């Protein structure tokens, strides 16, 4: 996907269409992650070497070439067969509950097998995943590039709704596609030496807006989440249920008490 910031007017229609299409809740999850598949952040106005800049950071999952979120998934792996819709070729791989499709390149989640541990969300440098805890079991959630809509011949919801046509969806591997032409014109990935996992969403803008976007919106480092503890805490779920049922954990609060609030002191 290409996002052309010369066209984007910052109307948030993409983010809202996505929330409506996929019932993405607002606010934060219990680990304080923004619950979002698709977002628009306002940047500037700020001084840049090229002059005053004011633009937007419309973001979504980058469906990276080397996605950090996939390797950390602790779910048991199962065999899955993928088919290339163009050539009909197939490939069989062992996948956890999240994977990168070897043919269309999208990063997907199997909600049935997702444990809801949030390790993938913690691993994403772009904060493009969160854990949806609404109703029933918690499940990781993210942009799918609207694969379900694509299968019906539709565009992703954020693309279809963009009144400025600032979002352009297509096949980067096809040199004649509009997206490939944007790459030739110099559309950039939000990456740097430390965060280099091959994002596939690219941004096109004038020099000053690009300076503002790249200085504010490229992650500084890869997340160093405490993955062992996060994953273990989730893998122990049946045992944790027993621990919770002991009913003794509530006693603990008597040892350290929340300090008196200013009101209470008066």
């Amino acid at each position, binding site marked *: 996907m290409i996002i052309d910031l010369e066209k984007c007017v910052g109307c948030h229609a993409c983010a809202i269409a996505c929330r409506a299409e996929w019932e993405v809740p607002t606010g934060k999850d219990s680990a*304080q992650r923004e619950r979002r598949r698709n977002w628009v952040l306002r940047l500037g106005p700020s001084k840049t070497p090229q002059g005053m800049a004011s633009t937007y950071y419309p973001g979504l999952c980058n469906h990276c070439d080397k996605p950090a979120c996939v390797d950390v998934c602790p779910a048991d792996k199962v065999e899955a067969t993928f088919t290339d819709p163009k050539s009909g070729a197939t490939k069989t791989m062992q996948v956890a509950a999240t994977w990168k499709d070897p043919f269309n390149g999208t990063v997907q989640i199997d909600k049935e097998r997702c444990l809801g541990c949030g390790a993938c969300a913690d691993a994403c440098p772009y904060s493009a995943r969160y854990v949806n805890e609404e109703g029933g079991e918690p499940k990781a959630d993210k942009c799918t590039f609207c694969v379900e809509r694509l299968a019906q011949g539709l565009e992703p919801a954020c693309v279809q709704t963009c009144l400025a046509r600032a979002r352009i969806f297509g096949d980067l591997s096809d040199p004649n596609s509009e997206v490939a032409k944007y790459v030739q014109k110099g559309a950039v990935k939000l990456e740097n030496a430390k965060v280099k996992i091959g994002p596939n969403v690219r941004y096109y803008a004038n020099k000053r807006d690009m300076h503002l976007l790249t200085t504010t919106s490229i992650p500084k480092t890869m997340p160093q989440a405490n993955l062992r503890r996060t994953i273990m805490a989730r893998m122990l*779920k049946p*045992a944790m249920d027993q621990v*919770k049922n002991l009913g003794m954990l509530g006693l603990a609060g008597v040892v*350290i*008490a929340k*300090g008196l609030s200013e009101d209470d002191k008066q």
Partner: protein
Amino acid sequence: MAQSTSSNMADIYRFLAQSLRYPDSSWLQAEYFSALDAFLVGLGWDAEAASIRRSISESADWLEPLQVEHTRLFVNAVPAVIAPPYGSVYLSDDGMLYGPSAEKTKLFYHEQGFDLVGEADIPDHLTFELEFLALLVEEGKSDEEEFFLAHHFRPWFPKFKARVVCETRHHFYRVIVNLIDFFTREEM
């Protein structure tokens, strides 16, 4: 009921804190051992789970040996208590109880909005530190949790753990301190 990972971690800290309290029948019951067993098996610590099962099933009265060992390790023993569960004992040159590091820990609790309930409570007791970590997790303060682990907890815990692991005569305490180590260690 959905449980988030972070609240799991808070429960793990509390479970570990509870496990080091004085063993009495108000909490140390079959349900506790069943939960501990499931917990160890869930981690893949099968040998540890088996060792605790063995030492509990060896005699009808398993509570008293645990009480004796708890007292010997953490409260008093002749000629000296083996592993006092207080940070400053390991962090001050002369092994002082309620040393300067304990004051710093107390101040950190306060900065995060928590105070000890008892006037005479010693702030850097192992169970208080674990409970404080649980409270930080519940408030979503993961940076503060990491900071507390790195600057207040880990500087002394490995020394305490080494003494318990070397000296204890009961598998229970060896396993519990190894569990605490596992869940508080820096990694990757």
